[in-house]
C-alpha cells in the first residue's frame, strides 16, 4: 500500500472533507455574493439619471476596490478557518485518525483553501458583473483614450467592454501584469492564513491577522529606517523606472518572488500539520 499518496484515497478525502467544509464554504460564498450584489445595486449607475455615457466609467470605479478588498477577505477567512478544528480535541482526533496520508490531507486543504475559493471568487464576481453590465449598460458605448504601442489611441467601449475583466481603468493597459501579481498575492494570503489556522489553537483568524500586522509594521519600520540610513541626503541619478509597462519583466519577478514566499509558507504549514498533536 502506498502510504504517501493514493488517488482513490485522495478522491475519497475530497468527498469526505466537502461534507463538512462544503456547507461553511457555500454559506460564505452566499454572503460574498450578497455583498457584491449589494455593492452593485447601490453603486451601479442608473442611466435614466446619467444620460451622458461619459459618466459611466467613473461611476463604475467602485468595482476595483470592491474586488481587491473583498477577495483577500474572503479567501483569508476560508483559509484561516479550514484547519481551525485542530484546536478542538474531538475534531482534531477525527481529522488526524482518518486513514489518509498527511500529504493527501494537506493537498486537500490547499485545494479547498486556495484553488477553489480563488477561482470561485473570480467566477462569481464575473457573473454578477456580467449580469449588471448586461442589464444596465448593454445599449451604451463610450470612446476612451488608451495607451497602446507607445501612443494614445481612441477606443470605443461597447457592451462587452464594460465588463470588469475587460474594461478597467486600473487594469486595462497592464491587465496581464496586474492579474499575475494579484494571483500570486492571493496564493500568498491563503498560504499564510492556512499556516495560521494550523499553528494557533484558538481564535486562529484574529491571531493570524495580528501576527501579520505586527510583522508588516516591523518590516515597514526596518524598510523606512534602512532607506533613511542608506539614502538620506542623496539624490537619485538614474531616470530608469522599475516598471516600464507591458513586456517588462518586473511584474513577473515580483509574482515569482511572492509565489516562492507562498510556497515557503505552504511547506511550513505542512511541517506544522505533520507535528500537530491532540
Amino acid at each position, binding site marked *: 500500500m502506498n502510504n504517501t499518496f493514493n488517488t482513490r484515497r485522495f478522491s*475519497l478525502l475530497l468527498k469526505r472533507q466537502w461534507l463538512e467544509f462544503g456547507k461553511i464554504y457555500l454559506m460564505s460564498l452566499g454572503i460574498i455574493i450578497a455583498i457584491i450584489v449589494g455593492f452593485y445595486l447601490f453603486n451601479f449607475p442608473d442611466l435614466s439619471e446619467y444620460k451622458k455615457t461619459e459618466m459611466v466609467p467613473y461611476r463604475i470605479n467602485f468595482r476595483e476596490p470592491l474586488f481587491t478588498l473583498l477577495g483577500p477577505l474572503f479567501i483569508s477567512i476560508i483559509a484561516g478557518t479550514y484547519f481551525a478544528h485542530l484546536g*478542538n480535541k474531538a475534531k482534531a482526533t477525527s481529522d*488526524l*485518525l*482518518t486513514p489518509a496520508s498527511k500529504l493527501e490531507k494537506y493537498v486537500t486543504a490547499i485545494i479547498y483553501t486556495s484553488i477553489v475559493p480563488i477561482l470561485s471568487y473570480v467566477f462569481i464576481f464575473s457573473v454578477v458583473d456580467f449580469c449588471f453590465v448586461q442589464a444596465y449598460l448593454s445599449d451604451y458605448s463610450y470612446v476612451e483614450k488608451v495607451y497602446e504601442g507607445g501612443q494614445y489611441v481612441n477606443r470605443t467601449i461597447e457592451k462587452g467592454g464594460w465588463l470588469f475583466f475587460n474594461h478597467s481603468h486600473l487594469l486595462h493597459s497592464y491587465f496581464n501584469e496586474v492579474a499575475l501579481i494579484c494571483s500570486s498575492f492571493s496564493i500568498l494570503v491563503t498560504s499564510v492564513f492556512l499556516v495560521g489556522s494550523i499553528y494557533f489553537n484558538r481564535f486562529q483568524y484574529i491571531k493570524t491577522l495580528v501576527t501579520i500586522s505586527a510583522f508588516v509594521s516591523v518590516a515597514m519600520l526596518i524598510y523606512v529606517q534602512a532607506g533613511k540610513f542608506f539614502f538620506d541626503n542623496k539624490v537619485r541619478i538614474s531616470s530608469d523606472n522599475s516598471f516600464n509597462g507591458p513586456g517588462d519583466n518586473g511584474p513577473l519577478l515580483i509574482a515569482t518572488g511572492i509565489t516562492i514566499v507562498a510556497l515557503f509558507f505552504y511547506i511550513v504549514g505542512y511541517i506544522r500539520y505533520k507535528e500537530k498533536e491532540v
Partner: protein
Amino acid sequence: MIKIDNLNFSYSKHRILFKNISMQLSNGHIYGLLGKNGAGKSTLLKNLAGLVYAQSGKIDVLGFDPAKRQPALLQQICFIPEEFHLPAIKIDSYIKANAPFYPNFDHQYFADLLKEFDIPAGQKLIDMSYGQKKKVIISFGLATNAKLVIMDEPTNGLDIPSKAQFRKIMASALTEEKCIIISTHQVRDLDNLIDTVIMLDENKIALKASVDEVANKLCFKRMKEIDETVIYAEASLAGYNAITPNYHQEDSKLDMELLFNAVLAEKDKLKPIFN
C-alpha cells in the same frame, strides 16, 4: 501486536506522565486500562494511536510507528475517544463518507449494531443525544473490523441497559485477530468483560495481569475480622471486603474496584506476588 519500549512522555517539564514504561499487548485479548484521574490512561491511548508524540522510547503497533500516522495503520485502528465529534449529517451520509477508508468495513454488522443499540438508521446525527451518538460511533468503530480497538471511557454517557448491551457487544466483537483496549475509571462497567488488567499509577504500570492470574494469586472474600493474611480490606455492612493471597487455590470472584484500590494503597505488598 503492540510493543512499548521505555516510553517517556510528559506534557511539560514539571508534569512527567510516563517514566520508562515497557509492555507488550497481544491480539485476542480485551485489556482494561485503569488508573486514577490524571494517571495518563487517555495519554497512553493517544500514544498508541499516534495522536501525541513521546519524548523518548519506542512504540510499535502492528509493525508501524503510530507517530507517522500512515494510512495502512490508521485503517487498522478504531479509536473511540471520550470526547468525539460527529458532523451534522445523517448516519447514511456519514457512513458513505467514512466507511470507504476502511477496507474491511462491514455494512451489515453496522446495521445490526445500530439495531441492537436501538438507533434509527435515518436519523440525523445532530438530533441525537450524547449517548446515542456514542452508540453510533462505537458501532461504526466496531464495523470497521480494525485489528486494534481503542476505547477511552466508552461507557460514559450510556444508560444502564446500554452498558449491559455494550458489554455483550464487546464480548462478541473479540476475535483472535483483534486487540481491544478499554480505558475507564468506572471499573464496574468492565466486570466480566476484560481478560487482562493494566493499572497505571505514579508514572508507571502498577499492575499488568490477566484476570485468571489475579484470581489464582489473590482471593477476594468477605471477612468478619481482619487477620494478618489480609493484604487490603475495606469495611462493609457485613464486615470487610478483603483481598488475601490465594494460598489454597480458592475460587473467588474478582472485585475490580477492590483490586484497584488495593494496588493504589498496597503496592509494596502486591508487587512480590505478581513478580
